[in-house]
């Protein structure tokens, strides 16, 4: 799992690939939080390269969402593969996380 960060205006776009599971979930959270800047108005997690996320990974998504909501920063997740999208749907996380097909759509929604 590797993380790559870039900014589009005041929106932070983080790309993660590989797997997020119990073995690296807290590392994932730490590397995401390290990229946060107080001037960010939005954060997008681009999961185009993500092959798997376990419930431990979903928990980290929830922690990130709660943290950003508390600081009034918008948050979206985009570019889920069909198997990762299914995990979001089954767990009901699609009901509380703003999901988009690609980063352009996510940017248009929260930018």
């Amino acid at each position: 799992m590797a993380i790559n960060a870039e900014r589009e205006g005041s929106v932070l776009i983080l790309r993660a690939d590989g797997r997020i599971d119990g073995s690296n979930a807290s590392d994932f959270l730490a590397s995401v939080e390290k990229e946060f800047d107080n001037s960010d108005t939005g954060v997008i997690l681009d999961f185009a390269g993500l092959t798997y996320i376990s419930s431990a990974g979903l928990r980290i998504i929830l922690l990130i969402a709660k943290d950003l909501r508390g600081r009034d920063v918008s948050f979206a997740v985009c570019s889920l593969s069909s198997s990762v999208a299914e995990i979001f749907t089954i767990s009901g996380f699609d009901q509380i996380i703003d999901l988009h097909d690609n980063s352009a759509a996510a940017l248009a929604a929260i930018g």
Partner: protein
Amino acid sequence: MAPYKILVVDDEPDLEPLILQRMRRAVRSGRYSFVFARNGLEALQKLREQDDIDMVLSDINMPQMDGLTLLEQIPKVDPNIRSVIISAYGDMKNIRTAMNRGAFDFVTKPLDFKDLRHTIERTLKHLIEWRAALASRDQLVTLQNELDVASKIQQSILPTQFPTTRRVDIYGAMEPARNVGGDFYDLIMLDQGKYGLAIADVSDKGVPASLFMMSSRTLLKGAAIGNPAPSEVLADVNNLLTEENDTAMFVTVIYATYSPESGRMTYSNGGHNPPIIVHTDGRTSLLDPIGGIALGVAPGFSFPNDTIELAPEETLILYTDGVTEAMNADHEEFGVERLLTIFSDNPPSSAKEATLAIFNAVREFAGPTPQSDDITCLSVFRKAVSSK
């Protein structure tokens, strides 16, 4: 802190005053203290009498028991003592033997005291690190024992007695992964001969997850006993779990009520894998997941429910993703497709048979690949009851 205690073993009587003289500063400052012995036997006796000796500095050639024999004996008294050997300059044969017998280092005669001090310090530094490693290993063992106890407590709350009557046939099992973790199932007696069935999977593993699992299970049982509607039970438990849930842990749950009499099963889903039904001809179908959210994520959600009727000799199976996400050596997942074909040639004739068949299929698929998640299964077989 007490000084490091060094046992010096040499048959040469002049060495004792020499060492005390040359090391007087370290002795006065409380860094070292010395004990002396004249041969290996006397050294062993000192080691047995004084269990606070940290290291041994020993000559090789001595009467009664030489230094090389002593080296072999020291670990039997205390394997954590470190030894440094004093040898004649260039005596590689004895030095090699001493190193092979576990000496930590060697110094040569005539003694260079600057080098000796350096060697002693290096030996003690190694000893300190070694002891720290031993201490953390012991802590880890203690912690692991506590986790094993937690894991046993956790498993002991799962029902292992299942009702067997003319109509009722229910059987569940959980195979925990190494860590204390997150899965549970439950079977709750309700009014009018109905049963509450639950299967659940807590996000993540470890002690926090197991505590969350315990409270989820208690809340679910409490809510289920007072309320016949699965959708309301899940909504209640969700609101209770969401209160002050700073850890963002959550639990996915299927909760169902089942009437053995009519075969009717009403279920609600909190973000869990949809159950399956095995039909009498061996076909298996997935139930509608009906889309509720995992419990503990956010308050105020409602949970839809659905009702199905289990035909005689059909089997309902609730399971956790430990089944579908079990991996084999090629990093392939067991997957839903395999789950759906387990019974194609051999539909189960009891709930126990159904549950065990799934465990067997997963075990066979995974082979020697270690299990990374709890595997849990709860089955209901609808007995055909002849009307009299």
